[in-house]
């Protein structure tokens, strides 16, 4: 029998599931994690004792609501945690659950696959002790650990100040925050940010808390290099042509988030260039319908808009699915959700101004910088392929294996595109789109096929 399937149990997937159940359906909810909630509202293991406020701060109420919603729905769902979806074709999803392969026919699928950090590599970024900002947050939230004893936070985006604040509050030594954004950009962004004064206020709060607690925050500060033998020992950074350095044993960095689009790609969704995300994203209408009649898209996996928007987009996509099944849905509710989502989109434009992408990164990256950490492909090797006349990203991948390793370009893909565009002189949207391949994550040998 074909099922209605939701992939991803974060804010979007859980709200989508809740909406379908409220209309009398019993969807199948697949999630790679052992406990639902997604990344931002990731739950700690069951035997941990910290309170929601300690874990999620201002977002505690929202996090608890998402978790309780899933807990209450469990009996009304075919909920499958610990389940990786690694392929999609011919109306079926290929899954892997506790080492067993399975195949799930779907009649309709809501893709809510979330996001990972957008990473712009720097020399030394593969040293033990260097993590993404999201990783640093997961270490603390999910495991009660800091990534080191003297931690530097760098890059840009809303996570930067949030994670630095969470670390300092939990008792970690935060050496400094290096924000690549010049202060002037943040001033220019104010009108857009004022569309969501509460979110803006939280950002300002984290920042002033850090300053009030004596943690240096530097703006227009750019990472230059991480140094160390076997692990991080120090790092160098630049501000207005002046080189500085810190002793530290850990670095967390990222420049915002990138959508996890590989499943939408394998499903066959049509993609369009999105200048705000600097990425190819699966096309969707304001309700979350993709280019395919049986695929719906919601949450950060379809474009970065944050957790609040993900909840609304999950509900809206589920309502679209119900409409398409001929079920009656409340038109006022759909209109309300779309208006709210549009408003958050406006705020998102402001955020992008406040944390602009460091356009100089690609031109400044040295040839020796290791771009692809799986296959260990350097920036110079990618540039050499481009100089041979190749400018299409999948061709470049075929020539030098950038983005071909175990992570399938999740970590280096965005940065590789920047290098290819910069070296070829072509626009970022005219070098093609890195295609997803199954399996989208590595499968173990000797996978058992379920009967």
């Amino acid at each position: 029998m074909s099922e209605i399937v939701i992939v991803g149990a974060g804010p979007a997937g859980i709200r989508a599931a809740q909406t379908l159940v409220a209309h009398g359906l019993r969807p199948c909810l697949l999630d790679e994690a052992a406990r639902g909630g997604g990344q931002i509202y990731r739950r700690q293991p069951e035997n941990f004792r910290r309170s929601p406020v300690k874990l999620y701060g201002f977002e505690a109420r929202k996090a608890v609501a998402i978790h309780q919603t899933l807990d209450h729905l469990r009996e009304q769902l075919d909920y499958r945690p610990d389940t990786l979806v690694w392929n999609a074709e011919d109306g079926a999803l290929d899954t892997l659950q506790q080492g067993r392969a399975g195949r799930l026919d779907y009649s309709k699928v809501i893709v809510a696959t979330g996001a990972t950090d957008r990473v712009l590599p720097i020399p030394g970024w593969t040293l033990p002790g260097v993590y993404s900002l999201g990783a640093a947050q997961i270490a603390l939230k999910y495991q009660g650990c800091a990534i080191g004893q003297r931690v530097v936070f760098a890059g840009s985006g809303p996570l930067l100040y949030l994670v630095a604040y969470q670390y300092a509050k939990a008792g970690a030594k935060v050496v400094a925050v290096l924000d690549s954004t010049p202060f002037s950009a943040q001033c220019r962004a104010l009108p857009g940010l004022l569309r969501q004064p509460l979110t803006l206020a939280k950002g300002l709060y984290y920042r002033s808390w850090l300053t009030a607690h004596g943690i240096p925050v530097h703006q227009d500060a750019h990472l230059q290099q991480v140094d160390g033998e076997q692990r991080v020992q120090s790092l160098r950074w630049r501000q207005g042509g002046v080189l500085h350095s810190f002793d530290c044993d850990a670095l967390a960095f990222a420049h915002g988030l990138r959508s996890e689009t590989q499943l939408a790609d394998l499903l066959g969704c049509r993609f369009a260039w999105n200048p705000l995300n600097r990425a190819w994203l699966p096309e969707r209408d304001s309700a979350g319908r993709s280019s395919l009649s049986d695929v719906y898209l919601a949450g950060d996996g379809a474009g970065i808009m944050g957790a609040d928007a993900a909840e609304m987009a999950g509900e809206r996509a589920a309502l679209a699915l119900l409409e398409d099944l001929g079920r009656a849905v409340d038109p006022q509710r759909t209109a309300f959700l779309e208006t709210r989502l549009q408003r958050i989109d406006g705020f998102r434009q402001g955020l992008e101004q406040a944390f602009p992408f460091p356009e100089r990164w690609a031109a400044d990256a040295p040839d020796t910088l290791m771009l692809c950490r799986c296959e260990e492909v350097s920036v110079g090797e990618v540039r050499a392929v481009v100089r041979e006349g190749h400018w299409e990203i999948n061709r470049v991948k075929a020539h030098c294996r950038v983005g071909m390793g175990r992570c399938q370009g999740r970590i280096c893909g965005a940065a590789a595109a920047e290098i290819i565009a910069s070296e070829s002189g072509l626009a970022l949207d005219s070098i093609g789109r890195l295609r997803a391949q199954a399996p989208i994550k590595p499968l173990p040998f000797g996978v058992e096929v379920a009967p």
Partner: protein
Amino acid sequence: MALLTRLAEGDRPALDFTLDGKPASGLQGDTLLTALLTAGEFLRHSDFSGEPRAGFCLMGACQDCWVRLADGRRVRACSTMLEAGQQVSREGSKPA
């Protein structure tokens, strides 16, 4: 020396395991990544240069935290829970 530092949730039962054949100990609720990196400095070595790696994303995306278990399974340390008696080995080494 450890890479990760425990800041909270220290009051959990200890679980003994072995790391590259030597006795080691973590806490119940630790991922393999946490257990290995509060006891040591790396998880694996790169397939090419042999340089040490200690994971990067902690959310199952980067595939840079694979370790091997006694039954031959290769697992992602960031998303595999520590169990008592596990025999964990770290792969590869720097080429001579």
